[in-house]
């Protein structure tokens, strides 16, 4: 039974629906025909890095190659260069717990965890290599080496290492004939030892290991078939020397060691530009700090050659082939602030002398060079702002040249990889395809100058996102405002005029009716707003504004499969830094989105076009700790909260009316109120909450901004009412004690800072994520716990748990608690002698229950609907299953009867018997078969129709969005409803009536006439 769509919901109907929504119901599932219609997914890899992206042939005999990359977010994957689709992808990062198997002191764990986070974000190198002609690729990121099957992406082996990988190289072998290639991995161990391991490419076992316990910084490893070179930095920070250790390929024995160059030549790690590998004459190249000279050394020799770099060079890159059989040529790509140039050098194999072969002209733009080798031939592809130029390493003659056509969006390549094919037959015919990363954070394949596909890889690394309504026409808003301000007669005349003016749209509207009716009857999915940004009556058509850590902003059209409506670079973020967005707010009335960053930066833009209205670039220092959306006498504002929770003085009309809850300098929680003083208001701390000594705040959850409550009580089976404790000024705070592993969950009143309730959980693993979510009158917390039961210590519980707590005004039904029927509630700031006594603080009656989940969950979020009638779901990302589950509130219900079947009244209420284990039902996974990687946050927004909640998930890697209807689509006709049948039936009946009416009339007259007298 489905009520008609868009039915006006009266108050009475509301209660009826509330009953309906809470009835026990079959499991939710995503139907096949909804896939791709209600949900969308951007399967992303992350921004490819120059060093870890290449074309590679996964099968020796097959000429088809795939594009492999290990991105800046640590995803290794293969892309079909023809279509741009992901063939496979894997998370290259292995979590420390899975590597080290837990253990260790709590303190050490925590430090390691932090170090891990830092390293993951920036410090560690990412390496991806493939052996020529081999069917595998090998990646290293963090503390492990991982080999993958090149065609399927299946794991071949992985080797955990006790240290951070500094370099990875595939080594060409000579001793066991062609075809055998091994992996060299350079590790910097915890104690400062440099370890080079040769791993068998078959199964990852160690062939030999070379260890050196010095304080040197291991940098890179290189081979030239006969020898292995380990390049490291020796000396003190700021004045390093390059040290090259020469090792034997067969045994790993050290043959020689030499220090290259003059004393204190190298300033830091980043000055060493390049160490070639798998070349007949591998080189190491470095520059001075000012980027004026380039120093080159052919590995294995002591000589150092110097070349002057062009003036004003800001960055230098070196491009060289990675094949032994290729000519030992390399290209130096130097960038100035406005342009770029290239110089090609040759290495003489006999004398080991490096000579400059030719130079390429200075062209504007950053430019991108890439290398491709085919046997001994080495080709350089240069992508400038308007051209793709193919050069040979031998001479400066241009082999081919194509104008760059990237479609309507102007984009210039930052770095690229390319594949050059020399066509047989015609002597001078070449085909080039280059996969370039553009300055708009896109990954674009350029085939002979034309853009074949573009992948929006910049959408990875999302830091903030919000739903925004599509702005209504400004004219309308303005006219309405005008009407409101003029006298009634004028307003009436104005309105009549406006309606007459609107008549011009009538024919178009009338014309559109048949198509709309037909599409509605046939069930075809002709979107009435195809290509246009226009609100729809169901409220599904919204925009999402997404900000990424690289400083890009995206506008996504939620109703049209997450199509990118616009993309803008907010600020150029320097490499290695992140844009730290602290607050994002969409003003639905004006259609503007305000984004505040941590470094005093602000950007205001139009949500439908992405036009930047106001922008202030980030300053050097991080000044903002958080933001708060506050009500002031001049309207709603997003205000900054400085470090240590200080806001500072504000003018009276911009001072918040509410208490602002924020973190203090010591990590404590505090409430801030503003006290007016003349024309300005100064802040005053109204309360402070410091967790007890030894406890550390790990997570804080508050009620969502839109948290509609349909009913203030829960109706029990016997028609009595349990009144919900609905205090909007509450938050849930989880604090853990790292020594005792006790997690304490506090419920705080945010006006008075009073603790309303607290619960302790034993044996909680502090290294695993602890998260809470809150809505209406309940909250959930999830953590990993292991403890013995209190009543039966022989029985232990271990697993990912979810504790759900309901808050009621009183334990008794039909009782509104201490406040009784008072119409208002207030949180007293007065000190209390006995805080637990009645009459002091209105404390809720808490009912809690713990469940053990079958999988870890993170990024908890609660669905929200327009009026709050629909049942709730807890949305959670499954980091191990790569999906988003919607856990129904009916399952996570603290009042489920324990140890007995529910009584008839309880069953009527929808309570099931308590089962401690909650299996995550595949039907409840809203991402169904999609593989959604790296979700960090989920945002929800209500639609206009009550049944539906819009969901958007973003984070490190993927973008996913869908609509969920936790109580089914009770206010919309589903796709299964056959309007054709309905209309057909009505038409058939009408036809029947029209046809039969004369017959019946005739018969009736005849009957009258033939009536017996």
């Amino acid at each position, binding site marked *: 039974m489905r009520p008609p769509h868009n039915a006006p919901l009266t108050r009475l109907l*509301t209660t009826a629906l509330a009953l309906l929504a809470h009835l026990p119901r079959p499991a939710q599932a995503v139907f096949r025909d909804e896939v791709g219609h209600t949900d969308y997914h951007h399967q992303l890899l992350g921004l490819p890095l120059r060093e870890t992206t290449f074309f590679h042939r996964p099968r020796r005999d097959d000429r088809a190659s795939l594009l492999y990359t290990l991105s800046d977010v640590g995803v290794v994957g293969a892309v079909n260069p023809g279509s741009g689709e992901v063939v496979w992808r894997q998370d290259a990062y292995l979590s420390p717990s899975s590597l080290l198997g837990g253990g260790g002191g709590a303190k050490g764990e925590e430090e390691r965890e932090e170090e891990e986070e830092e390293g993951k974000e920036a410090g560690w190198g990412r390496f991806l290599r493939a052996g020529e002609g081999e069917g595998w690729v090998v990646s290293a990121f963090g503390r492990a080496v991982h080999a993958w099957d090149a065609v399927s992406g299946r794991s071949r082996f992985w080797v955990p290492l006790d240290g951070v990988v500094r370099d990875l190289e595939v080594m060409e072998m000579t001793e066991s004939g062609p075809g055998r290639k091994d992996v060299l991995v350079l590790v910097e161990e915890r104690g400062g030892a440099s370890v080079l391991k040769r791993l068998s490419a078959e199964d990852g076992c160690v062939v030999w290991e070379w260890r050196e316990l010095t304080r040197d910084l291991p940098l890179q490893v290189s081979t030239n078939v006969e020898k292995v070179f380990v390049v490291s930095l020796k000396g003190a920070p700021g004045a390093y020397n390059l040290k090259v250790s020469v090792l034997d390929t067969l045994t790993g024995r050290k043959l020689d060691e030499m220090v290259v160059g003059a004393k204190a030549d190298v300033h830091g790690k980043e000055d060493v530009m390049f160490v070639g590998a798998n070349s007949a004459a591998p080189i190491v190249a470095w520059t001075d700090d000012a980027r004026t000279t380039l120093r080159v050394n052919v590995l294995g020799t002591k000589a150092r050659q110097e070349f002057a770099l062009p003036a004003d060079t800001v960055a230098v890159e070196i491009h060289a082939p990675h094949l032994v059989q290729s000519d030992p040529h390399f290209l130096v790509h130097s960038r100035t602030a406005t342009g770029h140039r290239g110089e090609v050098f040759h290495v003489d194999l006999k004398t080991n002398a490096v000579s400059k072969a030719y130079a390429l002209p200075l062209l504007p733009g950053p430019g991108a060079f890439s290398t491709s080798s085919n046997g001994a031939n080495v080709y350089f592809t240069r992508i400038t702002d308007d051209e793709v130029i193919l050069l040979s390493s031998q001479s400066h003659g241009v082999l081919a040249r194509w104008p760059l056509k990237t479609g309507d969006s102007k984009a210039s390549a930052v770095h690229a990889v390319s594949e050059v094919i020399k066509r047989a037959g015609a002597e001078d015919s070449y085909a080039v395809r280059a996969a370039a990363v553009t300055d708009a954070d896109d990954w674009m394949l350029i085939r002979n100058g034309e853009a074949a596909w573009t992948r929006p890889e910049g959408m990875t690394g999302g830091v903030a996102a919000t739903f925004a309504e599509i702005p209504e026409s400004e004219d309308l808003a303005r006219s309405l405002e005008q009407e409101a301000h003029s006298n009634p007669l004028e307003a009436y005349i104005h309105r009549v005029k406006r309606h007459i003016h609107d008549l011009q749209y009538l024919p178009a509207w009338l014309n559109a009716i048949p198509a709309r009716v037909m599409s509605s009857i046939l069930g075809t999915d002709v979107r009435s707003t195809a290509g246009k940004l226009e609100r729809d009556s169901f409220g599904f058509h919204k925009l999402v504004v997404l900000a990424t850590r690289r400083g890009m902003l995206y506008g996504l059209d939620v109703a049209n499969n997450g199509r990118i409506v616009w993309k803008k670079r907010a600020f150029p973020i320097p490499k290695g830094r992140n844009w730290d967005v602290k607050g994002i707010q969409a003003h639905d009335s004006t259609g503007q989105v305000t984004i505040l960053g941590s470094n005093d930066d602000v950007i205001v833009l139009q949500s439908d076009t992405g036009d930047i209205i106001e922008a202030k670039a980030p300053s050097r220092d991080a000044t903002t700790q*958080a933001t708060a959306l506050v*009500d002031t006498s001049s309207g709603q504002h997003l*205000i900054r909260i400085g470090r240590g929770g200080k806001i500072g003085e504000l003018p009276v009309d911009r001072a918040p009316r509410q*208490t*602002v809850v924020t973190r203090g300098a010591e990590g404590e929680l505090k409430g801030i109120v503003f006290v007016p003083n003349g024309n300005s208001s100064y802040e005053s701390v109204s309360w402070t909450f410091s967790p007890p000594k030894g406890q550390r705040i790990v997570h*804080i959850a508050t009620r969502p901004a839109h948290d509609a409550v349909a009913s203030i009580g829960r*109706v029990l089976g016997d*028609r009595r009412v349990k009144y919900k404790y609905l205090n909007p000024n509450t938050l849930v705070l989880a604090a853990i004690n790292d020594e005792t592993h006790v997690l304490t969950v506090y419920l705080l009143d945010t006006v008075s800072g009073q603790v309303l309730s607290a619960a302790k959980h034993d044996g909680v693993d502090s290294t695993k994520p602890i998260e809470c979510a809150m809505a209406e009158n309940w909250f959930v917390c999830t953590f990993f716990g292991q403890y013995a039961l209190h009543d039966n210590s022989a029985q232990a519980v271990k697993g990912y748990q979810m504790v759900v707590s309901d808050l009621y005004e009183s334990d008794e039904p039909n009782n509104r608690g201490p406040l009784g029927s008072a*119409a208002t509630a207030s949180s007293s700031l007065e000190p209390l002698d006995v805080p637990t006594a009645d009459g002091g603080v209105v404390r809720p009656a808490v009912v809690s229950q713990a469940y053990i989940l079958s999988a870890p969950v993170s990024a908890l979020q609660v669905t929200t609907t327009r009026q709050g009638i629909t049942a709730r779901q807890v949305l959670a990302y499954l980091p191990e299953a790569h999906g988003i589950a919607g856990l129904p509130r009916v399952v996570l219900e603290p009042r489920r009867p324990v140890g007995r079947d529910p009584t008839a009244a309880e069953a009527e209420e929808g309570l099931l018997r308590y089962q401690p284990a909650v299996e995550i039902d595949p039907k409840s996974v809203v991402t169904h078969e999609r593989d959604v990687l790296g979700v960090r946050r989920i945002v929800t927004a209500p639609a206009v129709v009550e049944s539906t909640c819009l969901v958007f998930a973003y984070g490190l890697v993927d973008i996913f969005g869908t609509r969920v209807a936790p109580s089914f689509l009770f206010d919309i006709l589903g796709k299964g409803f056959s309007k054709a049948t309905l209309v057909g039936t009505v038409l058939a009946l009408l036809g029947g009536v029209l046809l039969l009416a004369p017959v019946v009339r005739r018969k009736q007259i005849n009957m009258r006439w033939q009536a017996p007298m």
Partner: protein
Amino acid sequence: MSALATAPVALPAWAAELKNPPAHKLKPDSIPDPPGSPWASSQISTGSKVTAPPRKPPTPAEMDTLKLKKAWEVALGPIKSLPMTAIMMYMSGNSLQIFSIMMVYMAFKNPIMGILATNQAFERFETEGNRAKILQVKLAYVVMQLVALALGVWKVNSMGLLPTTRSDWLAWEAQRDVLEHAVPGL
């Protein structure tokens, strides 16, 4: 037939018949009239057979008693059908179905209509003499209808349609207004 002769315009036969239906045809003599038919009465009355002596017409007092008795029967009528109704109501269950809804409708409609039509129901039994007694009967009748109505109310209550519990008034209870507000800035 004479009308036809004097009519200035000759009407067709059917029109004339429509205007003046033909007189009842005289039955053939061979078929006797059924006993008690008006045509036969004169023959019977004049018949030579000896019939029972004519019944003495009842006196007004007797008539009043008789009428009162009848009136009591009518008054107690509703209570007689109650057990049946109760069983049917019990059997029909407490769910909202077309059958139980109809039953409830009837359970309410009949008593109320009965009460409204009390005077009509006893009009024919009412005489000058038994007016006072009939009033008692009427009262009894109303009480019986109310009992029937009570059965309907019981049914409605057991169906949960009466707003007797706290939950029925929940929608009219207001959420408490909170005087202070706080915003998170975490």
